[in-house]
């Protein structure tokens, strides 16, 4: 049966460069000499460390406890000794450090206690807790805690559950290879998600430049015998793998500004996330490794199953970086982030380690003035007006940039890709977004300070009044007492009372 597909506006067709890394099967990367596991690996709060230096941990042991509602757990990726809990360089463009748990593996790779979860008999909230405690986050790159998304929504069930196997970004083949080799697990994971979200149908969208993955996944659906799951090849066009874009292509639903896909009965998960959810619920295994593509300026581009916390350098070494390598990028060429050093660890967001060289990715040519040609608006998959957002971001008129829905920008890079003036548009949007966030945060803390100051002023006033009232009451009481005692000379009696009080205090002291 041919399903009717829809289309999103814009998009580009960069060279795929996928055939380099999808020739060989997934290899398991060896355990490194030292694992550096950052505590902050998902959207939301930084988990609190649960271990101390000198402690022994088992594989899969919880080492970071979620902090707040939007946060996810972190686990030890192998057994060994905790060497330190200290700030280490993060896989982040800033080149800043954050708290990491450093583990020296003992070589035994011993699992802690793990057991399959009887999730079918559990309350939905308990299943979500299990997913949170298993550290499952969106593995497509956004690393949003999955437990918050496994939700039937307001209407009690989803119409469509979209499993995202589009993998539109050039060079990256981790989902492709995982679908080819571990399709059955992904389909089973999708089935779990289908049951948890009470979805009427499950559509697994895969770009049609991955025929092997499509065949493998179709076979997996037949073998597992899962119902209501359909493999849908979608036309190859970047960024078809964006959640909103894939939802649009598969269902025709365009999620408007300020709404969520669940408002329309649709939810989207990455294939890797479906795999991790199967492992978490059916095997009781927390998320401690992921598939990582190593591609670009290497001898043998390939996919590896890498433990979280493995230094990128060691993964790159397996593929043998060529001598003229000058940088590594986490993610693909369109949306990736330059890493401050090759020693940074692989984290849950690392779908690809792209090795760069001056010949493979030459330095960007100088930026030319915007000529308002509108190419960027035609290429924008979210129907924004990139040139307007660019003007206002550049001029630091952030309010205006926000009016042009800057925050709907998914930073896919299509606009910069087509720009004839070679303006790094996304850099401007990132700059504007982080400035706006910083200002909002500042404003929030100023509001808190204002409230606390006003409260303090009120309190001081109230305390003053209370004190005055108390004193007055006490004076009246003494007076009344004296009057009752029938003291003839009031003043004398008052003095006597004061003397008595002073004497009493002296005795006590």
């Amino acid at each position, binding site marked *: 049966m041919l399903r009717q597909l829809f289309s999103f506006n814009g998009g580009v067709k960069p060279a795929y460069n996928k055939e380099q890394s999808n020739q060989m099967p997934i290899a398991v990367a060896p355990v490194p000499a030292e694992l550096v596991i950052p505590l902050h690996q998902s959207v939301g709060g930084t988990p609190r460390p649960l271990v101390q230096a000198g402690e022994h941990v088992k594989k899969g042991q919880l080492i970071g406890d979620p902090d707040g509602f939007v946060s996810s757990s972190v686990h030890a990726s192998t057994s060994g000794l905790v060497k330190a809990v200290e700030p280490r360089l993060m896989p982040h463009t800033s080149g*800043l450090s954050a708290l990491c748990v450093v583990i020296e593996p003992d070589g035994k790779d011993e699992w802690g206690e793990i057991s399959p979860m009887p999730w079918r008999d559990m309350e939905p909230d308990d299943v979500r807790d299990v997913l949170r405690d298993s550290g499952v986050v969106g593995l497509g790159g956004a690393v949003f805690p999955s437990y918050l998304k496994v939700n039937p929504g307001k209407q009690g069930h989803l119409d469509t559950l979209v499993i995202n196997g589009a993998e539109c970004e050039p060079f990256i083949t981790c989902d492709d290879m995982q679908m080819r080799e571990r399709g059955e697990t992904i389909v089973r994971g999708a089935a779990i998600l289908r049951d948890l979200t009470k979805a009427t149908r499950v559509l697994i969208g895969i770009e049609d430049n991955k025929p092997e993955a499509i065949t493998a996944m179709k076979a997996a659906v037949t073998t597992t015998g899962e119902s209501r799951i359909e493999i849908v090849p979608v036309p190859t066009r970047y960024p078809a793998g964006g959640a909103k874009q894939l939802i649009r292509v598969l269902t025709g639903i365009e999620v408007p500004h300020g709404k969520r896909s669940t408002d329309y009965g649709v939810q989207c998960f990455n294939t890797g996330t479906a795999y991790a959810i199967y492992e978490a619920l059916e095997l009781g295994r927390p998320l401690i490794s992921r598939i990582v593509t190593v591609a670009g300026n290497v001898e043998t581009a390939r996919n590896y199953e890498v433990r979280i916390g493995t230094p990128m350098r060691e993964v790159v070494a397996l593929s043998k970086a060529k001598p003229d390598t000058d940088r590594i990028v986490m993610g693909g060429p369109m949306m990736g982030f330059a890493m401050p050093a090759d020693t940074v660890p692989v984290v849950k967001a690392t779908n690809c380690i792209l090795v760069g060289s001056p010949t493979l990715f030459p330095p960007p040519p*100088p930026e030319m003035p915007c000529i308002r040609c509108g190419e960027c608006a035609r290429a924008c998959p979210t129907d924004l007006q990139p040139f307007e957002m660019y003007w206002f971001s550049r001029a630091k008129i952030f309010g205006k940039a926000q009016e042009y829905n800057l925050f709907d920008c998914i930073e896919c890079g299509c606009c910069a890709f087509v720009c004839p003036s070679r303006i790094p548009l996304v850099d401007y949007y990132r*700059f504007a977004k982080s400035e706006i966030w910083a200002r909002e945060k500042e404003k929030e803390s*100023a509001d808190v*300070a*204002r409230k*606390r*100051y006003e409260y303090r002023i009120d309190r001081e006033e109230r305390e003053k009044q209370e004190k005055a009232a108390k004193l007055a009451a006490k004076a009246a009481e003494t007076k009344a007492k004296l009057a009752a005692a029938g003291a003839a000379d009031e003043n004398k009696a008052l003095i006597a009372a004061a003397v008595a009080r002073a004497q009493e205090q002296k005795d006590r002291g």
Partner: protein
Amino acid sequence: MLEALLVMALGSVILGGALGFAAVKFRVEGDPLVEKIDAILPQTQCGQCGFPGCKPYAEAIAKGEADINCCPPGGEDGIRKLADLLGREFKPLSGEHGIEKPKSTAVIDENICIGCTLCIQACPVDAIVGAAKQMHTVVASLCTGCELCLEPCPVDCIDMKPIPENVESWKWKFPVFAIQSRKAA
């Protein structure tokens, strides 16, 4: 003639009544300009401007009693916003009120603190917890960096520490490009 007068008189009575009602019903509490100015001020409540807090300073600006360049924590950015709001010229920060410093929080050296509670009384936002003869500590997330606790401390155990940049507070920089020299032909 009389009819016309009556109509006009009736009209003025009705309209006057409506206006009077509206004036009572939709009365604006406080000065909206003060609120707007107060929203721009950084709420450190530090008193460097010479007023006992941000709100009094906002009131003084609204009345025209104070200049817009007396708030060091608000910095240049704050002065620009005030100038925009009030339609005045931008002025550089007046030196007598202090200088713009990086945002900091107070940190109490807990080994030295004698538990005198003087800093607790000085803190305008109640960001210091402690009790008499007990160690005090600053709740960093609430501290506005006003420095008002430094002066009353008898043992000088409070330091201002600039807030370090972390991965979450890090901001993308404005894109800049090195001008490349043209290669010799």
